């Protein structure tokens, strides 16, 4: 229970359906840890704020369930924050939410559920799970509310995890959830939606990285380097590769007649390569560390729609097996803009999530 409207409604719904439930809030990150990131006003709406715990506790009291805050700060730092920082420093653009789902919310938390004798976990994610008799597999499907669908962040879920997970909001659209929350008189019914990366204030990941590296005693300037064009001309210097992500236009600090975009970053040479919009187009890439969900894998090329970042509209493509069973090559029918190493690639067949992997 994050203290938001979604998980609060889930708790109330399950109680209404007669389930015996226990509410838990995961304490993942100490917001007061990096003083330079402390907001001047109260930090409402960010993960693990006292306000959110207060809200979750109030909802638990309202619906009459036992409630606990569990501390996963150590695991969250090791398995989400550190990889997030390392990925940026390696010139990639990570998605911490997926790591958090894989290692915290559907792993450590499931273990906690086991510990207290709970058979299943339920979350406020917008997604659907169903068991398919024919294949004997648990399938993951997009939420009925396409604008809220979170399957992009759930591609790492294993069969074992899906078998024990409930997504009660998967068949609902957000306005219905809010309406239900109001109808049940939940204190959080009109609370705003949370932001994507919960531990990074205001989405300023570069400021977070600087503060985190400073705490760890790593000099941020160690990733400084030059900005070069695709044809090898040096245009200027930059403050560190972690300030840049593929497709980025703002913040390059270089004037140019044509708009310039980040095409790639190279952590070995600390170079940031820039070019025109067309240079961003890419029609194929390798996806690695695959996780298959609705199918067991691919032995021959398979048609699918592939989504390469959360806001991307899944595009038609063919998935080709490679010599390595843990990797596939994705070939788009039409080149796609800004295929970004470190992001997830999720394979859909209509609403069905076939599986996914990480863009190499």
């Amino acid at each position, binding site marked *: 229970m994050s203290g938001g409207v979604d998980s609060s409604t889930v708790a109330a719904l399950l109680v209404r359906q007669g389930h015996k439930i226990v509410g838990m809030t995961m304490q993942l990150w100490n917001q007061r840890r990096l003083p330079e990131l402390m907001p001047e006003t109260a930090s409402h709406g960010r993960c693990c704020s006292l306000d959110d715990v207060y809200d979750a506790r109030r909802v638990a009291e309202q619906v009459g369930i036992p409630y606990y805050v569990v501390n996963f*700060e150590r695991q969250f730092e090791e398995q989400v924050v550190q990889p997030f920082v390392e990925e940026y420093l390696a010139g990639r653009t990570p998605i911490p939410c997926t790591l958090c789902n894989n290692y915290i919310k559907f792993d450590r938390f499931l273990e906690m559920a086991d*510990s207290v004798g709970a058979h299943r976990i339920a979350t406020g994610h917008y997604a659907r799970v169903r068991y398919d008799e024919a294949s004997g597999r648990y399938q993951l499907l997009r939420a009925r509310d396409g604008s809220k669908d979170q399957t992009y962040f759930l591609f790492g879920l294993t069969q074992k995890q899906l078998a024990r997970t409930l997504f009660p909001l998967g068949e609902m659209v957000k306005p219905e959830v809010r309406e239900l929350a109001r109808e049940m008189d939940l204190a959080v019914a009109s609370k705003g939606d949370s932001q994507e990366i919960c531990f990074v204030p205001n989405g300023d990941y570069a400021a977070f990285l600087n503060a985190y590296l400073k705490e760890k005693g790593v000099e941020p300037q160690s990733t400084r380097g030059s900005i070069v064009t695709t044809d090898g001309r040096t245009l200027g210097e930059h403050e560190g590769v972690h300030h840049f992500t593929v497709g980025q236009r703002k913040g390059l600090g270089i004037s140019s007649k044509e708009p310039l975009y980040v095409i790639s970053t190279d952590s070995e040479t600390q170079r940031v390569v820039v070019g025109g919009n067309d240079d961003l187009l890419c029609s194929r890439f390798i996806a690695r560390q695959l996780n298959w969900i609705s199918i067991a894998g691919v032995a021959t090329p398979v048609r699918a729609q592939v989504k390469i970042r959360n806001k991307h509209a899944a595009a038609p493509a063919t998935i080709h097996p490679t010599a390595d069973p843990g990797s596939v090559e994705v070939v788009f029918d039409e080149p796609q803009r800004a295929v970004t190493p470190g992001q997830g690639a999720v394979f859909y067949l209509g609403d069905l999530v076939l599986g996914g992997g990480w863009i190499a």
Partner: protein
Amino acid sequence: MQHFYFDHNATTPIAPEVLETMVTCLGQVYGNASSIHRFGQAAKQKLEAARRQVAALIHASPAEVVFLSGGTEADNLAIFGAVRAAGRPQAHIIVSSIEHPAVLASAAKLESEGVAVTRLPVSAGGTVDPESVRRAIRPATVLVSIMHANNELGVVQPIAEISRIAREAGVPLHVDGVQALGKIPVDVDTLGVDLYSMSGHKLYAPKGVGALYVRKGTRLAPIAFGGHHERDRRPGTENVPGIAAFGAACELAGRTLAAESERLAALRDRLESAVLGRISGTGVTGRHAHRTPNTSNIYFDGVDGEAMTIALDLRGFAVSTGSACSSGAITPSHVLTALGLSADRARSSLRFSLGRTTTAEQVDALVDAVEASVAHLRRISVHA
């Protein structure tokens, strides 16, 4: 489902006779103890009667007892008050590394203002070596602050030996007695303390009331301002019903302490020998030290203490682990790590603290639940 309470070091239920005193006082004695009229005088009488009761429990003179809001305020007043009163620009204080956060955070605040702080280590048994106090004292030392009994372990510190050393050096000694008062005999003269913190709700009085013993002649500057209450040491209209209840609780403790501590020690031993005998990979931290009779800190190797606390709560048994932070989540115990326990073992530790209402049947039921929970948690962590 029945719920059994094994967390008396966190707080205690109000004793029936204490509740009666409190309710009577709340309903009838509403005067301001500073007022001249008979309403004020009635309140003042309750206040001074309670002061005598508290003083009697610790063998002090009533004039040496300052009422305030609880243990945390007592620690703050003792530490900031003693350092401010010393008025030295280059002051130095000594604390132990297993103090309550009310002491440690006060010391850290002073440190940020330029005061030098020595944090003394403890032995694997959980005690401060008095000789380490002697070695740490400098000409600039203005205060030594060492707790009487530790909240997580129950381990009792050699206060009398430490006070002799402090007194020889002319340094005042503050003792946080919150977890000792009502559990073991306290005599401020035998102990030789100059400042002694007390909290009502740890001995069957309500929350929001406590006291600081200030030995006559000890220099102490106020840390709050606005009135002449408590001999100019703590301004604010006195919480008369709470203070009266605290007084009644101290009197009750004085009457029952000897018999009750014997009874609790037997229950604690029953708990420990059953757990250690029936569950492998367990041990009692601080077992061989002098301890308060009601506290037992046991580790369960391979078990997550946080999960076990929740699992036991869902089975109807209230226990605790580490100290709760503001969100209610649990952080690894600075006390257990200071004793040299590994982070894993610290995280696998639970604190059981017994009290007036604890019975042998409850202890036996607790042991059964602990045994079942440990077996369950160890089974699932093998599969995870």
